[in-house]
């Protein structure tokens, strides 16, 4: 656990939302970082490195999420995850 913790809000904009393929891409990205990374939707917070957790958010298009990271590479981790979501998981629609 790092000394700091950073949070950033992000909105799911791709049509299918955090479906299986998108969730897998997000988990893969998150797993590349040493920081603890969580995603929060309303009262529910899950580990961003767990595909079951991410799918369990049931985050469809238009959902607001909070990306929370703490650790040595928290800045990069949050930037990468927010970037992936904003790039619609690099999928064609």
């Amino acid at each position, binding site marked *: 656990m790092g000394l700091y913790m950073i949070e950033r809000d992000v909105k799911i904009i791709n049509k299918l939302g955090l479906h299986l393929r998108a969730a897998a891409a997000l988990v893969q990205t998150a797993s590349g970082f040493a920081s603890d990374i969580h995603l929060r939707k309303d*009262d529910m917070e899950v580990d961003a490195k767990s595909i*079951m957790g991410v799918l*369990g958010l049931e985050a469809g298009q238009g959902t607001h999420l909070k990306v929370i990271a703490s650790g040595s590479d928290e800045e990069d981790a949050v930037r990468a995850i927010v970037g992936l979501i904003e790039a619609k998981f690099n999928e064609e629609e």
Partner: protein
Amino acid sequence: MKAKQIPLSQIINDCGDFLHLRALNEIRGSDPNIERSDIGIPSLSMVGLGPPPPRGQIQLLGKQELTYLEGLSLEDCTKAVENISKLDVPCVILTSAEKLSGKLVDVFSASPAPVMTSDLSMSQVFQYLSSYLEVELAPETTINGTLVDVYGVGILLRGPSGIGKSECALDLVERGHRLVADDAVKTIGKPPGILIGRSVAPLQNYVEVRGIGLIDIGSIYGIRALRRQKRIEIEVNLTPWDETKLQDRSGLETRKAEILGISIPSVAVPLVPGKSISVIVEVIALSHTLKSYGYDATAELDRRWLERIKTKARTSFEPRDTE
């Protein structure tokens, strides 16, 4: 965490048939919310002696109250009902009300709060409704961990991602135990101190195994391997092996974990290659059951040791049993 509340329509949907609920009047305005898991029996408020019922609490009237109201004049009866059927009362339920007089029907139908009747007794409605409300209004959280039912004991496997919680669950299922939820456990704290976990809806029956992906435990192992929800009794923390860290070697101390303000025993199991975690988890479950039956093996060993020291007993071999 914000306080939970449930709309009246949900209660009618979930309990209406079971409790034989029938509406006496229409719900005026928006769907009222129930905010409290306790239920009011407003006899004193009704006669104008007590404070009015608190906001967001369901009110129950029984045979006694209805008989009393029946005996009043129309004017007094209207007044008594007004005392309890305020706008912020989400619902009044008349129990043992298979036959209501025309007067009571008229007075209650005119009330601003929704009124329902049931032919069941007050204690029947009270018991069912309060256990329903306790679960529905219980504080809730999602835990990163895997919940399995091992010999009837709910074991929550926790630890950093990738340490092998799901693999351990799979091994336990293979050995005849049951999976409740993998990786994300939706948990409620039911007063006064019970934790109940279940899986997040769309993930039910699935387990993620690194290298394979998502597998459907239900279709591979069938219903035997599954359980919808389970009380969480012990936390088993899988930790990486650390030579320098002190491990609990006696088992005399019980560590605790706290979830939603409820404390459960917690066991840390350090991992080493070749160690069978599922067997260890089974032993943890069985020894927990043994403890709950009143037998604590560690404490018993300690007692026996002290006893022998006191009596200076010797350990001697049996003379005849030498083969």
